[in-house]
């Protein structure tokens, strides 16, 4: 790569950083991509070929450290919204909301290494919920501004799904046809039809045919265990190899950036610890932070920069989730297929007359117990021969549906620095505070009712598990801690994702979302933002 200085340093190689590095390098820019985590080799590191794959899980080599604030007090009258399970009872018997985990991955490719491959454009209305419903925030950009980047992301990743989608006017065909619905989802489809709902095939970054040198999916359903055949379009097998193939993008794994150094109003260099724990610095003309909605504000706050608005870390939004699993009298083997193969969009930004603002999305899912180990541990009590008989009778009978809804920002939900807890380099970690507001509770009530109704209409017998954001924080989608906006007093970056305070600093990850998208999976939008930032930097900054 020679000794010429880099045009840009991109920090974080996930859904936002990877595409941003790609966008810069294909435009002839020299990029240094610094990633805190390791590089995983899908052919060697993942465990889905092994008998104990369920016990091994995703082979996280390193997990981020963060802490949580106080749990929200729970209301006695909302017992029906609590997470419970047939074998273990209430997941959280305490009177306060419990923080379980912020699910993310440290590694080249970021959290997409574990994501379930849902790849959605946001609904055009998602950008304007304040104007439409009077809640949350509008985005300073619209669907049209992201459209060309959505198309590029869909092409590079290889998104499969239906062409005709009534909720996205003027849609162009996706690169790949949709996947067939699983046997279990076809039962849910019929139930939805009886209820007047339309279950349609999902749009996913999972190949329905061989594409771009990658094979088609073989429906093992193990996306979140790490896809070992590369049909899932995680960033490490799509954008990053293409960026590296330009010869202009250097990826450094195990590089923990801990400070951005600002002199005379511009970022001069980033400081990081390398894999051996040695402190290093890197310089460039432009710096892009893409560490995700928890680590990006942590880095900026620890660096004491880009926060003249006081908004860094504020407006945090989490995943508002409901998930119900029942046993069906028929054997379905719903663990076969892809994790979320179909969805109902009828409540995504609906008209007036419903008890909540904004909206949510329902989906048919293979659930979380994808094999015998988890099934046994999650749904059965006891031991001995009776246990084994019950297992033989009920394994393969689960049917699951879920919903994810809009999470509106509120004052009590934010990320800050926890000075008392440090990571292994002695750097203070992020502390997450998350509280649900009234709209979230109304959405959960509505989603839970619909999920239960769908399961009943599907002919399922007994609900064996319900997982709810009401009493558990277990977020996979997080957003909003450095939101974009036109007003430097109320936002951290401008509509091009450039810091209002520092002209050579950009943010290209989920932190910039002003609203959470009504329950749509965010990764494709994050990637589109990453590509848009790259184009803007190339066109307007690196001239």
């Amino acid at each position, binding site marked *: 790569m020679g000794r010429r200085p880099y045009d840009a340093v991109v920090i974080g190689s996930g859904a936002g950083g990877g595409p941003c590095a790609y966008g810069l390098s294909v435009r002839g820019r020299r990029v240094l991509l610094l990633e805190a985590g390791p590089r995983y080799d899908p052919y060697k590191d993942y465990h*889905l*070929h*092994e*008998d*104990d*794959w*369920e*016990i091994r899980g995703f082979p996280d080599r390193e997990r981020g450290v963060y802490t949580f604030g106080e749990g929200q007090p729970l209301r006695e009258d909302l017992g029906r919204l609590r997470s419970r399970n047939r074998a273990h009872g209430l997941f959280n018997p305490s009177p306060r909301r419990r923080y379980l985990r912020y699910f993310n991955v440290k590694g080249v490719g970021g959290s997409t290494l574990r994501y379930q491959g849902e790849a959605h454009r946001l609904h055009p209305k998602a950008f304007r919920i304040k104007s439409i419903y009077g809640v949350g925030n509008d985005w300073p950009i619209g669907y049209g501004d992201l459209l060309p980047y959505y198309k590029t992301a869909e092409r590079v990743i290889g998104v499969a799904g239906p062409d005709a989608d009534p909720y996205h006017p003027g849609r162009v065909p996706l690169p790949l046809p949709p996947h*067939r*619905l*699983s*046997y279990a989802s*076809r039962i849910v489809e019929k139930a939805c039809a009886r209820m007047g709902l339309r279950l349609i095939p999902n749009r996913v970054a999972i190949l329905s045919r061989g594409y771009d040198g990658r094979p088609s*999916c*073989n*429906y*093992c*359903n*193990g996306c979140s*265990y790490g896809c*070992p*055949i590369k049909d899932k379009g995680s960033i490490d097998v799509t954008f990053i190899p293409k960026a590296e193939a330009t010869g202009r993008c250097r990826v450094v794994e195990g590089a923990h950036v801990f400070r951005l150094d600002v002199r005379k109003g511009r970022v001069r260099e980033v400081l990081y610890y390398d894999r051996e724990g040695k402190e290093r610095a890197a310089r460039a003309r432009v710096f892009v932070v893409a560490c995700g909605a928890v680590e990006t504000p942590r880095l900026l706050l620890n660096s004491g920069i880009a926060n003249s608005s006081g908004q860094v870390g504020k407006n945090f939004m989490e995943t508002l989730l409901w998930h119900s699993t029942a046993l069906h009298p028929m*054997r*379905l*083997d719903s*663990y*076969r*297929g892809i994790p979320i193969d179909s969805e109902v969009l009828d409540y995504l930004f609906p008209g007036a007359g419903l008890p909540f603002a904004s909206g949510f999305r329902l989906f048919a899912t293979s659930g979380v117990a*994808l*094999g*015998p*180990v988890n*099934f*046994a*541990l999650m749904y059965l009590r006891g*031991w*001995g*021969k009776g*246990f*084994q008989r019950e*297992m*033989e009778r009920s*394994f*393969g009978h689960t049917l699951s549906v879920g919903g994810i809804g809009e999470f509106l920002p509120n004052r009590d939900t934010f990320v800050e620095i926890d000075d008392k807890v440090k990571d292994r380099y002695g750097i203070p970690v992020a502390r997450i505070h998350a509280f649900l507001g009234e709209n979230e509770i109304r959405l959960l009530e509505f989603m839970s009712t619909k999920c239960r109704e769908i399961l009943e209409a599907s002919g399922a017998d007994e609900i064996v598990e319900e997982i709810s954001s009401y009493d558990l924080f277990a977020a996979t989608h997080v957003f909003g801690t450095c939101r974009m906006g036109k007003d430097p007093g109320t936002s951290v970056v401008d509509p091009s994702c450039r810091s209002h305070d520092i002209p050579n600093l950009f943010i290209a990850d989920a932190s910039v979302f002003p609203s959470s998208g009504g329950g749509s999976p965010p990764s494709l939008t994050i990637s589109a933002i990453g590509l848009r930032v790259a184009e803007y930097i190339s066109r307007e900054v690196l001239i």
Partner: protein
Amino acid sequence: MKRLTRRWFLKVLGALGLSSLLPGPSNAASPPLTRDTEALAEAIMPGAKDLGVDERAAALMLKRPETARIFFSGMRGLERYSRDRYGRPFHSLEEREREAVLRWMASLPRERIERLFFARYRRAVIAYYYTCPEVWKRLKYNGPPQPKGFMDYHLPPGGGSG
């Protein structure tokens, strides 16, 4: 049939520098650890011993000092209760008696070490038991997920046109 041995315990613990946790063989009060460990696994999942599940579950608990301590305290509690109640070690009890010991452990208050031990060991035994392809056959589970995948995902289980 594969049997758990004292040497095996010593090897696993030695590798972790935890050999001192293993009660000495000369101590008359020391529990017949190997036989009880097997018998407990077998009571939790009949057939576990033949599949080597007892060893894998114990090895999981002996991986870290905290869980190794829970393991030995729990086994000691099991041994004591069996002797106090039936006058014999756990592994020589009748099936009905073993069942009563398991129910006793499962119903103890949460903070009792025997209950914690039982919850962990039960979990480990069940988990490893259901990783065994021999057991999958009985469940008609055609795993692991790779390399074959489940290409029949759109059909009713076991084939057919759906």
